[in-house]
């Protein structure tokens, strides 16, 4: 099966990644170019033809905050830059810019890993996050990707709470042509999970992707419910899940830190799927997530269509933040 081959076949993988980076990059640049006073131009303006001085560092810190990096991470990055500027005797702003890209890339790559390589069928992904983050859409996109790779995909409509949520996932499943397990609205999500895992095993599915209802991380009973769903999946599977992705909207500010922390307490997150990067939000919050919580981004959503899902590429992301074009990137 191509799905398995792709996961193991290195040559093919590199080729695909190259393609992906290109697509990813273009989408990102498109998104980032949409705003006139965006971070891109801002940083470019700050970083062009200037001497490296304290004022420059302060403006950089400002720009990072405006990209939602959060103050602690902005300070952390700028301190790092200051240090390197001093020890490497950097005096020109252009040179500093590439150092900044390097630092951001390093930060994002600290715990980076692609989606785990499948070892055992079914490969199980659970998708969690706050309301409206983009969970169901991301699942549709993942299903499409796996289907393209000729994998046998099963989706589980684990959001039994929100009006129309089951129908939403059903539409995706039908469009893409993958199987779906669903119960009636209002039923127990743990029961859906139970059935889904057993159905995946019985039908010999390669991949099972579980949707969950959006929930705010402060709702204790809902977080307990999520933990229970996770336990049921783990028990029925007889092992750990392959991926548990927290979906974070790129528009989110500092609250994403609280989200990550509290979802992490309920279920063992394996990474982040960052959605809506096709807007003007920079998604700088992922720098804070990497810096403060060691959580890495694995996937990026750049639109509402099936194909608008990319593997995360730290250096492409860092470069796109600074508006370098593909050619000289």
């Amino acid at each position, binding site marked *: 099966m191509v799905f398995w081959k792709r996961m193991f076949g290195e040559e093919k993988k590199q080729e695909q990644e190259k393609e992906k980076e290109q697509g990813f990059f273009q989408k990102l640049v498109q*998104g980032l170019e*949409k*705003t006139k*006073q965006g971070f891109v131009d801002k940083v470019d303006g700050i970083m062009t033809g200037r001497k490296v001085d304290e004022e420059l560092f302060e403006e950089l810190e*400002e720009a990072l*905050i*405006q*990209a*939602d990096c*959060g*103050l*602690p991470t902005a300070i952390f990055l700028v301190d790092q830059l200051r240090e390197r500027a001093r020890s490497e005797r950097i005096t020109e702003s252009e040179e500093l810019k590439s150092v900044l890209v390097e630092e951001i890339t390093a930060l994002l790559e600290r715990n980076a890993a692609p989606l785990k390589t499948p070892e055992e069928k079914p490969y199980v992904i659970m998708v969690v996050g*706050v*309301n*409206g*983050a*983009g969970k169901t859409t991301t699942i*549709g996109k993942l299903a499409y990707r796996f289907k393209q790779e000729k994998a046998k995909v099963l989706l589980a409509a684990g959001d039994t*709470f*929100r*009006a*129309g*949520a089951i*129908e*939403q996932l*059903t*539409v*995706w499943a039908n*469009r893409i042509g993958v199987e779906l397990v669903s119960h009636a*609205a209002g039923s127990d999500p743990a029961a859906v999970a139970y059935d889904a895992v057993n159905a995946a095993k019985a039908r010999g599915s390669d991949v099972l992707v579980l949707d969950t209802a959006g929930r*705010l*991380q*402060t*709702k204790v009973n809902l977080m307990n419910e999520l933990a229970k769903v996770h336990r049921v999946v783990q028990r029925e599977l007889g092992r750990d899940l392959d991926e548990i992705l927290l979906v974070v*909207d790129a*528009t*989110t*500010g*500092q*609250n*994403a*830190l*609280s*989200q990550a*922390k509290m979802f992490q307490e309920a279920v063992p997150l394996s990474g982040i799927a960052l959605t*809506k990067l*096709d*807007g*003007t*939000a*920079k998604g*700088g*919050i992922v720098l804070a997530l990497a810096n*403060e919580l060691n959580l890495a981004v694995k996937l990026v959503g750049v639109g*509402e269509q099936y194909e608008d899902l990319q593997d995360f590429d730290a250096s492409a992301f860092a470069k796109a933040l600074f508006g370098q074009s593909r050619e000289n990137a």
Partner: protein
Amino acid sequence: MAFQNLSSRLQETMRKLRGKGRLSEKDVDGILREIRLALLEADVNYKVVKDFIAHVKERATGHEVLSSLTPGQQVVRIVNEELTQLMGGSQAKLNLSSKPPSVVMMVGLQGAGKTTTGGKLARMLKAQGHRPLLVACDIYRPAAIKQLQVLGEQIEIPVFSMGEQNPVDIAKAAYAHAQRHNNDVVLIDTAGRLHVDAELMEELVQIKEAVDPADILLVVDAMTGQDAVNVAQSFNEQLELGGVVLTKLDGDARGGAALSVKAVTGKPIKYVGISEKMDGLEPFHPDRMASRILGMGDMLTLIEKAVSAVDEEKAEKIAAKLREAEFTLEDFQDQLSQMKSMGPIDQLIGMIPGMNARQLQGLEVDDSHLKKIEAIIQSMTPEERRRPEIIGGSRRKRIAQGSGTRVQDVNRLLKQFSQTKQMLKQLSGSQGSPRGRRKKGMFSLFQ
């Protein structure tokens, strides 16, 4: 998280300033720096924060603050006032036209909460005696129409839909439908869209032109970060919004977006969403939002409490006595009972800026300690209360016995009292307002 909450950070800052009498401009800067951090942490847009701080600074370095004896609180109070005002001093209502049906459009980014908010608003309007009609114009997101239909069923409000036809046509048809069926409010649920998506933004403009809405509400997620200003500005420029709804406030997001959005559009925040359920919509309270953004509800509550619980008349009398340095243990007793009426003493003092937990332990200011003080004062004769200097060794023994305390306790109270009085005397020589003086008098006895 890397941040402490603002209350505790401010406490630290103000502790350093305590006893300084007056604040220099630099001291005010210190406080404002903490406020700035709090605002950024709450996701208020960077530029909005900058303007705001500059504005507050102007006010805070004025006479009003610098001459106050509680300058820290004064600065915080100004910040709170300004924030509240910035967010729209009073509550703004939904615009309805004089000639029904009134059309209200819900617009915003994907996942902000438009559909849910539309349902909640319809439910609220129905409870007020209106006959709303919900209209499904999100033809893009899978099952968005179904979502609205399910909600409509739940709250027993009709939903108008025409499948995946052109949203402009749906809106027009819905308007005609409402006229025929006597619906006086038409709530249009539109698809989530990026503010930079020219084609989809144009669709909204066309809907607007077709049905002439009385109100257009931008639905904004309370968790939105710095980009909120770009989003709000674009939507406002293209549609001329009537107001804003802030959703998902039942989480722990501080909701700085509220301030950003108000600052760039000037449009009032009309409602807030506080639950996933259909009854989870409330009118917006600018003052509550200000405290939330600052992350310091407690302290502001305290300031309010202190102001309201203290009997103004008594306070004025005390102030007058202070001026003549006639403050007695009787007055002190009064103050103690006033403080008790404000709530558990340790909790209360814990909320006062400048008091931290460590100091509190040293002071042992708990209710039992207060009761001791009260008992001691009660065991004194009226004459002794008025003129504590006459209390010699034998009187102290008697008072200790009468109050069930030790002589050391009596000694300590008398010493603290005379020190405080000494301090008050000095202060009354300065230009402080009676108000400030009163507060200082009230709390300084425990320091």
